Each structure stands twice: as structure tokens, then as C-alpha cells.
């Protein structure tokens, strides 16, 4: 299996606060990887570093072997790495349809995801397409955020806390779309606090604690006890 995306000894800090201490992760082609961990474990910082929102040393993030750690976010996205940001971050001035269109307007590559394909994936968005994006419910906003990222036909899809603040039934609906997203050919990294959902869709899991990877393994074989220890440390 070829490695699509890799972080090597990735470090990151906010001012004096160090958030990541040499994180190594890999994403293989066609794979779905879940990154789990408690609040403040460094999961979102990891995604911010990969996407170029936080700039790192070039060789700390590799995409198909090319150093991209120092690239700005727009250039990372142009390489086919799309992000569903934490908190949805829809554009309030744009309608639902415009929010979707803007996801694909800078990277026009042929692929399975078009406006129609996104509406087929989330039919409710077709009805709401002329509403302001931010006038929707939390779950519908999350659908827009996922659809927006898909519109660029990404090679790699990064999802940051897509279940955050949503009712369980809504989370289930959103995760129900994951198999179709995977089948479209995208490799996926899911950052989640909802361990159950993450394990159900992922092939492999990384567990993070205090800026370090404390456990990694296949999602099907990893034990709850091992996750518990990796999540909270030996003292828990």
C-alpha cells in the first residue's frame, strides 16, 4: 500500500505552549484513519498543521513524498487535501449552494463529486439550497461542510470533530454517508471524540494524549482497555 500522507516528528506550538511533540502518522491510499483522544490531546492541531493553517518545517508533513509542511493552506488544498473544519465554519454571507460551490471553485478536477452528487448524498440540502448556510440546523450545516469539502474531489479528506455538538441520531445520519465517501476513492482522516463512531468507520486508529501518539493499531482488533489507557494514561 502506498503512503499518501505522512507526518514525521511533527511539532507545533501556540506561543510558549507546545501542542505536538514529534507526532508520526501515516495515511495509505484508500484508507480511513481515525485520530481519537481527549480534549487538548493535539488532534485538531495535527489537522491544522497538515492543512497549512499552522506552518511547520517542510519535511514534517509529506504528501506523496513531497514536503508540504511549510505550504500555505490554499496550496495544500490545491494538492487535493480538503478539510471539514471543526465547528463547520460555513460562510454566513453565502447560501447553502454557494457554500458548496466555493468548495470546488479553486480546484476544478474531474471526479465523482458534483453539486448533484452532493445533493444525492444529502437530499435535504437540495431543498435548502437557497437558504443562508448558517440558517440551517447543526446537522444540516455539518452536511454542507462535508459536501463543501467533497466538491473539490479531494484525494484526502480531513474531518475535524464532525459529531461535535450534534444529537446521536444526527451523528448517525452523517456517518451513514461515510461508506459512499470512501467508495468515491477519497482517503479519510477523521478526528473524533466519539470513539464508537470513529472505530466503526476507520481501518486504523491513532490515539493521542498531550501532544503525543500513545497508541496505534487496526480498528478491528484494538481493545477498549488499550484505548482507555492510551486516552487517560496509566494512572486512570
Amino acid at each position: 500500500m502506498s503512503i499518501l500522507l505522512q507526518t514525521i516528528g511533527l511539532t507545533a506550538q501556540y506561543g510558549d505552549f507546545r501542542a505536538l511533540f514529534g507526532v508520526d502518522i501515516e495515511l495509505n491510499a484508500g484508507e480511513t484513519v481515525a485520530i481519537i483522544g481527549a480534549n487538548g490531546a493535539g488532534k485538531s492541531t495535527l489537522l491544522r498543521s497538515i492543512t497549512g493553517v499552522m506552518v511547520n518545517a517542510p519535511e514534517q508533513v509529506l504528501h506523496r513524498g513531497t514536503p508540504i509542511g511549510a505550504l500555505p493552506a490554499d496550496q495544500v488544498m490545491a494538492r487535493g487535501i480538503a478539510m471539514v473544519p471543526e465547528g463547520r465554519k460555513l460562510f454566513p454571507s453565502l447560501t447553502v449552494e454557494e457554500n458548496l460551490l466555493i468548495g470546488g471553485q479553486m480546484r476544478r478536477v474531474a471526479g465523482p463529486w458534483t453539486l448533484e452528487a452532493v445533493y444525492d448524498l444529502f437530499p435535504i440540502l437540495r431543498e435548502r439550497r437557497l437558504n443562508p448556510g448558517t440558517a440551517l440546523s447543526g446537522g444540516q450545516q455539518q452536511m454542507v461542510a462535508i459536501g463543501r469539502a467533497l466538491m473539490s474531489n479531494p484525494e484526502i479528506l480531513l474531518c475535524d470533530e464532525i459529531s461535535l455538538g450534534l444529537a446521536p441520531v444526527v451523528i448517525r445520519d452523517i456517518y451513514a454517508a461515510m461508506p459512499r465517501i470512501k467508495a468515491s476513492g477519497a482517503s479519510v482522516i477523521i478526528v473524533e471524540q466519539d470513539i464508537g463512531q470513529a472505530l466503526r468507520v476507520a481501518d486504523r486508529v491513532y490515539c493521542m494524549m498531550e501532544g503525543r501518539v500513545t497508541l496505534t493499531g487496526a480498528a478491528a482488533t484494538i481493545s477498549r482497555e488499550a484505548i482507555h489507557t492510551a486516552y487517560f494514561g496509566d494512572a486512570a
Partner: protein
Amino acid sequence: MIWIDTLVQGILLGGLYALFAAGLSLMFGIMRLVNLAHGDLIVLAAYLLLVLVTMTGMHPFVAVLIAAPVMFAIGWGLQRVVLNRTLGKDILPPLLVTFGLSVVLQNALLEGFTADSRRIPAGPLETASLDLGVVTVGVMPLLTFLTAVGVIIGLNQIFYRTALGRAFRATSDDPVTASLMGINPGRVFAVATGLAMVVVTIAALYLGMRSNFDPSIGPARLIYAFEAVIIGGLGSLWGTLAGGVIIGVAQTFGAAINPEWQILAGHIAFVVVLLIRPRGLFPRAND
């Protein structure tokens, strides 16, 4: 009948103020950048038009087709090289830098063109008038107003009907998330300033044809532009036209009562609107 005439002249004058203000409104709406050099950039464009017209003998309406791309390039470069570095959470750096730019522009124009007042010759158009029955209007003021409406319709079309406009609005909402969509905020801002300078060139065309100008008049145009933008509601283009019209009408009525009151009446209208609606007539919902 005199009052109808005064009202119509005021509305048409408002078109000129709306043209002054549209570029300022555009830059503020997209970047939250208050450009204190806006008036001086209008004067710069007026001199550029004057040079083109006097050197080549071409009509000002043709000259604007050459001056507009030049001003677009100046705006693009200015934003890319200077103003993008000033944008951030602190609103003070862009204010200081554009204030400095205003001083530099005024002095550079003074060196280059002296303090003599100039005018862009427009031929018979300057004095042409149109009898509308109830009132007689100057062709130039009418053209100015129609151009202002056209500019605002054009800008609205760009904002709400094109991919560029979508990028403008998205970047204005949230530059970081826009960059995750593959948009380079610095480039979008540079295009926005370039576009604002095209509007500035159109404003300069009418300023230069309708009245005398010299290197020092920029700040006074900036005040009118500011007032029109604030009356309309920050960032709202149709509001900017309404703001311009309110100032124009107030000025012509002020002048009809007493010629000395013209400028003051415009400023009083501005203060009154601010007292009644502090966020302007058409504030953006998500400001």
C-alpha cells in the same frame, strides 16, 4: 417648482458622492480596511486622465478605458505589497499606513503637477442640458448619476453572480476557512483593491470633468465618501448610493436656503442619520 428642481439636482449630485464612496465601501466591505488615501487616489486617477487627455487629445470617456486598467494594476500592487501586511486584528496599522500614503500622494502630485487647479476638458458635454418638462437637468450630472447606478449594479452582479464575488464574500466572512477552500486571501484582497481603483477612476472621470481639482482636494472627497458609506450602512453598496443621495439632497437644499450652508447641510444630515440609526440605513446583518 424650485423645490422639485432642488431635489432633482440633489439626487443627481448624490450620484457623484456615491461614486466617491463606492470604492471605499468595496474595500471596507471585503477587507474591513479603512483607506484614508481614498480621496487622494481619486485625485491621482484624475491627473492620470488629465495627462492622457491632454497628451493624446482623446475624449475623457476613451481615456478612462486606458486609465482604469492602470489604476487596477496600481491598486493590485498597493494591496499586495503594502496593505496586506497591515491587515490583522489591530485596525490601527491600515489607518496609519493609508494616512501616510495620503500625505505621500498629495506631495508627489504637488511636485509633479504644481498646486494649480486643473480640469479635464469634456467639450460641449460640460454645458449640455436636458429639458424634462418639470425640471431641466445638466447632461453631465445625469450621466454621473446613471453611471453611479450602473457601477453599483455592476458591483452587485460581481458580488452575487460570479465565482469571484463568492470568493470576495467568503474571504470577508472568514479568511482562514476561505484559505481551506483553496482561496489565497492576499490575492483576493489585491483583486478587490484593483476593482476599487477601477471605480475610483470612474469617480475621478466625473470629478475632473465637473469641477476643478488640485493635489490637495483628496481629503475633502474622502469625507463625503465616508459620510455616504456610513449613512448607507458599512459595506452596503445600495446603501452607499442612498447615503450619497442624502448628502447631495441636503447640500442642494442647504444651498437653496443660503449658499453658505451647502457643505454644512450635508454634514448635518450625516449627523442626524447617525443619531437616528447609528449603524446606518442598511447595515449588513453579520457585521
